């Protein structure tokens, strides 16, 4: 049982939150995230969601308030973008280091300066090492589906790690699409009530978030990695379970499109993936064996799954909507590191495109494939990192 609604990605996230029923929500507005927390407030105002809504004075406080509420044993939700995520930065490792289950929607947006409100992945990618799971979605339906899966993942006893669900600002957050919304019962069947491992109980005093000396710190960090390992193992299982209940295939860690016999593959994250599939189809019809590999889970990074798909590919393009200044795109680094020593000689180009919301057109993607083909034919890469679509 489900209903179809014509809604955008932010509304899809809000509907997911309505069904997930967090007990405490703390939120601060920022474009392009704001309509998520507006819609959630509306659900509470209309009696469709019963939750405490803490109107905090900043994003730092949004996450700090969520931390306090999780300490009290509650399921929580917050959302942010860009500068807001950067402002939360101090709280991010505090939540993950304390093994606090939590889901945060990130409507991706470029970082100032110069000011931009439009989408790229610089905000969440630059928070890569704060101990959060990061799942990138490509459309409103996947945003909805992934929010549900993210809670199950985050609250799993072996994971206990917070999750960011990242949706591209405007392209996903503000674009209306048909979204299937399941009924509440099915959601509750998929996602049981949260059972905290630790929660405030005056009868049993605990000190939450102790301090430790060098002789104990590393073990906590290693434990976080074990949580990530568990997540890597669980994400495909949770996706499969979701598909079984809701009847919709899920990407799991990665989604490989026409990669089985592909010679040229473009690796993507987020909303550009759909466009890339259309372009790959078009090039296939002209005889090129093209494919698209979407990375849904950026943390934990699915190196093994990725190598399995890419090991026989001749030419690989890695498309980054972010940039690590002084080196290359972050996904570029990750994919190359995964492939290193695991595959035969391949030609790899890291493409940087779509920064600050610049449209990545089908012609840009065709150009990327052409450059990959050319590199394979010449058996060399002229420019290992290329900005695509720069103004002349």
């Amino acid at each position, binding site marked *: 049982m489900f209903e179809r609604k014509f809604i955008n990605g932010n509304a899809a996230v809000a509907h997911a939150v309505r069904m997930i029923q967090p007990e405490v929500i703390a939120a601060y507005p920022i474009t392009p995230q704001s309509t998520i927390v507006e819609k959630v407030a509306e659900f509470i105002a209309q009696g469709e969601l019963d939750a405490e809504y803490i109107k905090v004075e900043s994003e730092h406080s949004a996450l700090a308030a969520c931390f306090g509420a999780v300490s009290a044993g509650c399921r929580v939700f917050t959302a942010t973008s860009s500068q807001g995520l950067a402002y939360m930065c101090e709280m991010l490792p505090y939540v993950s280091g304390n093994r606090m289950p939590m889901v945060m929607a990130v409507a991706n947006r470029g970082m100032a300066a110069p000011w931009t409100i439009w989408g790229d992945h610089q905000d969440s990618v630059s928070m890569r090492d704060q101990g959060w799971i990061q799942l990138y979605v490509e459309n409103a339906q996947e945003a909805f589906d992934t929010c549900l899966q993210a809670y199950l993942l985050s609250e799993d006893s072996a994971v206990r790690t917070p999750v960011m669900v990242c949706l591209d600002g405007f392209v996903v957050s503000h674009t209306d699409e048909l979204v299937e919304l399941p009924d509440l019962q099915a959601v509750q069947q998929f996602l049981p009530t949260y059972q905290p491992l630790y929660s405030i109980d005056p009868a049993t005093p605990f000190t939450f978030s102790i301090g430790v000396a060098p002789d104990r710190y590393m073990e*906590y960090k290693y434990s976080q990695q074990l*949580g990530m390992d568990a997540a890597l193992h669980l994400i495909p299982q949770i996706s499969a379970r979701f598909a079984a209940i809701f009847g919709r295939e899920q990407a799991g860690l990665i989604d490989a499109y026409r990669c089985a016999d592909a010679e040229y593959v473009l690796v993507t994250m987020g909303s550009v993936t759909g466009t890339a599939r259309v372009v790959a189809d078009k090039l296939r019809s002209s005889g090129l064996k093209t494919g698209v590999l979407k990375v849904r889970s950026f943390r934990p990074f699915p190196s093994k799954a990725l190598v399995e798909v890419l090991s026989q590919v001749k030419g690989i393009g890695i498309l980054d909507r972010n940039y690590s200044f002084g080196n290359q795109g972050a996904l570029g680094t990750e994919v190359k590191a995964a492939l290193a020593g695991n595959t035969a000689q391949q030609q790899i180009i890291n493409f940087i495109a779509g920064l600050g919301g610049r449209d990545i057109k089908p012609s840009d993607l065709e150009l990327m494939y052409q450059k990959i083909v050319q590199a394979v034919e010449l058996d060399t890469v002229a420019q290992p990192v290329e900005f695509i679509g720069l103004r002349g």
Partner: protein
Amino acid sequence: MPNSPHANLAPHLKCPQRPLTTGSWRSMRPQVQVEKCNLCGLCDVLCPDGVIKLTAAGLTIDWDYCKGCGICATECYRQAMVMVEEVANV
């Protein structure tokens, strides 16, 4: 992996836990002048560490945690507490 001794470590612990003592910090120790003490309990109230207790047997001091700050001796309006040099911590 689930069997790892490091799985699911979270930095939250039951409290209190007090394996350490601070009595060795003392260079001076308070000494009750029983004849002057009227058991008013002000030294208990004003002790930052709460080591002085008023009991049926009189004042007791927890030597494991008395840091020897001397507030009790300064604040006693009957001069019933004096600070003496610490010779050996017990």
